[in-house]
């Protein structure tokens, strides 16, 4: 028998988990509570993990594992907090003690977690611990002092007053209040190593639960949407499903979410070996990465290491101009607008003009379109030629690359890292050693250096090799 709040005009209905928490309070049918015995005081309303799991399993008629998962969710969101090991927000189905959080500290979408409150909390904690804050707390404190400086006097004043007001309560209540506040901030400002349930991404502009008023504008929107749906090109479901199945069977072992990744997933174990082994321009790629190059030509080209390998192969075959042209077209498409005209002219001079040093072999019609377009160059003027060259490389060089000694060499040297086996203490240490990864600025600089190096090792004179290729194509 759940009772809803009948006089609430709030359009955002209360989350159902709060109703469950309310049910758990019933003295007859709720969770059994016991007293927590501390050194000097006893505090009531402590509940054990196993009691919570048993109650949930009984109430919803589910098995113990699912009940445990649901209980962990309640702990992760902050409706219940652990009394021991307060930084790990999980439900342990044993005699570990938990307690309910007061409604003020329940998570709610409409009440933003303010940095002002966090600053006041840190200042209070600073007073209580006489300046000995934990490392991550100290870092947060310094950050907040820097950017909330204009409010800092208020924060100090309010922290002192809240601290003094707190001391007016009796000792057991003071202990409970401190535990409650600390639990709230563990959920909303998780210390390193705590998995937070609060990472939900961007705030939505519209509330999905709110009923939309049926104005003429709304109906106009719906009509437009339906018309566009009808106009969409349709593919036979057998074809699209077949493609999906082919994709999933090829890639299912390569997805780090669906399959274990080696040596270990950095998101789970906080160990970044996986990322360092898979850097864009690493010397020896991993076996999984090399396998992905065999799936399609697109995969090979999109991976910088794969493209480098392909470039090496083409260099040995003296047909590097195709890849160079393709890369130049990509640079034109994605590059800055001011250098576009010069780039287009440069590409024409190097690759397309009669007697150019790195002449590429495209058919007459495409050449016509391209030359005409170059009179008024824009970003996509070389698209037709680029597609032609891409198809040429895909049908011709790609197959030969996969059979070449260059590729076989890379395959042999590829590493297959051993899976990590971390103990609990090692995992905690890894979590403490978490640091931000390489800055994108540095990565960009490395890319630019690579490009400069390639450009410096200039193009080979291949006009003689061109005639060889023509003879090969005739055969």
């Amino acid at each position, binding site marked *: 028998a759940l009772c809803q709040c009948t006089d609430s005009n709030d359009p955002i209905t209360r989350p159902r988990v709060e109703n469950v928490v309310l049910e758990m*309070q019933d003295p007859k049918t709720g969770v059994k509570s016991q007293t927590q015995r501390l*050194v000097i005081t006893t505090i009531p309303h402590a509940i054990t993990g196993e009691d919570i799991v048993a109650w949930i399993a009984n109430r919803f008629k589910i098995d113990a594992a699912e009940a445990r998962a649901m209980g962990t969710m309640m702990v992760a969101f902050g409706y219940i907090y652990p009394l021991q090991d307060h930084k790990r927000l999980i439900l342990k189905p044993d005699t570990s003690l938990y307690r309910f959080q007061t*409604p*003020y500290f329940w998570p709610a979408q409409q009440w933003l977690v303010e940095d002002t409150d966090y600053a006041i909390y840190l200042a209070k904690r600073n007073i*209580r611990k006489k300046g000995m804050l934990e490392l991550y707390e100290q870092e947060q404190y310094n950050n907040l002092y820097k950017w909330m400086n204009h409010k800092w006097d*208020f924060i100090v004043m309010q922290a002192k007053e809240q601290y003094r007001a707190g001391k007016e*309560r009796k*000792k057991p209540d003071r202990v409970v209040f401190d535990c409650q506040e*600390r639990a709230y901030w563990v959920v909303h400002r998780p210390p390193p190593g705590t998995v937070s349930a609060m990472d939900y991404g961007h705030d939505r502009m519209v509330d999905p639960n709110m009923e939309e008023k049926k104005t003429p504008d709304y109906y106009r929107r719906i009509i437009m949407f339906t018309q566009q749906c009808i106009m969409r090109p349709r593919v036979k479901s057998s074809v699209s499903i077949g493609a999906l199945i082919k994709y999933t069977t090829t890639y299912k072992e390569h997805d780090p979410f669906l399959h274990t990744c080696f040596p270990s997933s950095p998101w789970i174990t906080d160990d970044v070996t996986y990322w360092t082994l898979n850097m864009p321009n690493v010397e020896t790629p991993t076996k999984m990465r090399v396998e992905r190059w065999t799936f399609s030509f697109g995969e090979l080209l999109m991976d910088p290491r794969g493209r480098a390998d392909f470039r090496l192969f083409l260099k040995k075959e003296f047909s590097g101009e195709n890849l160079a042209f393709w890369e130049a077209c990509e640079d034109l498409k994605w590059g800055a607008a001011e250098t576009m005209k010069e780039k287009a002219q440069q590409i024409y001079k190097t690759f397309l003009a009669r007697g150019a040093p790195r002449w590429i072999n495209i058919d007459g019609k495409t050449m016509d379109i391209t030359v005409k377009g170059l009179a008024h160059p824009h970003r996509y003027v070389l698209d037709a030629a680029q597609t032609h060259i891409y198809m040429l490389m895909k049908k011709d060089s790609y197959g030969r690359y996969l059979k070449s000694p260059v590729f076989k060499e890379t395959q042999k040297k590829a590493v297959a890292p051993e899976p990590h086996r971390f103990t609990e203490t090692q995992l905690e240490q890894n979590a403490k050693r978490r640091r931000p990864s390489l800055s994108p600025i540095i990565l960009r600089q490395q890319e630019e250096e690579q490009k400069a190096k390639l450009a410096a090792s200039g193009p080979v004179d291949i006009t003689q090799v061109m005639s060889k290729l023509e003879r090969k194509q005739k055969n």
Partner: protein
Amino acid sequence: MGKDECKTMLDALNKVTACFRHLVIALGSTSDSQNLREELKKTRKKAQELAVANRTKLTALLKDKNISKDDRAEYERLWVLFTSSMELLDVDMKRSLEIGQDFPLKVPTRHLIQTGMTGSTTTVSARAMSVQNMKYEADANIDTVDLKELETEIAQVDQMMEEMEMKVQVAPWAVEAKQEAGAELKSTVSVGNSSVGVISICEEEPKETVEGETGLMKVFAGIIFTAVLLIAGILGYLVINL
């Protein structure tokens, strides 16, 4: 002199805001009661009185065009203190409305959350109201009746804050804090020995009982040591006299 008056009034408002927050946190928990609802009502009214008084004083001071630059900077700082207090109060009032509506006291099927807090908050509200003891004189249905008043009061506060933003042109980010990082550590009343023992229990749990117990052990050792000293002193005195 206006500055000192302002400061005392702001301190009072600050104190009431802090106490109000403590009271709202107890709402809905096993600490909740008729008395708590009355305390909230009284504290709220006091906060509003102080808010209006502060606002009139500060707007008067800020409107004065003949003040020095330093004075103006100081008044702007006080204004930021005032608006921050009001923001906290506003949020807490809205939350108290929501939680008050969710947890009516008289419905028998509606249970309060068993948070472990069972004591009363009368000392906190006495602090807010600056009285020795709180008197309770409200009706039995204060938990539902008060909510209507609360809604109107929230609307009033919102309107006041809007007016304040429109009429007073103070850039809050331009204010520089006088206090440095860690200023709260100075001039706070030192925590008594007994409360240190209890509060430290909420810290690192693996050491929790050990910390408490080593504290106790130290106390026992001290007592035994002084007892031994006393006995030695008495014996020595007796030896000398005999």
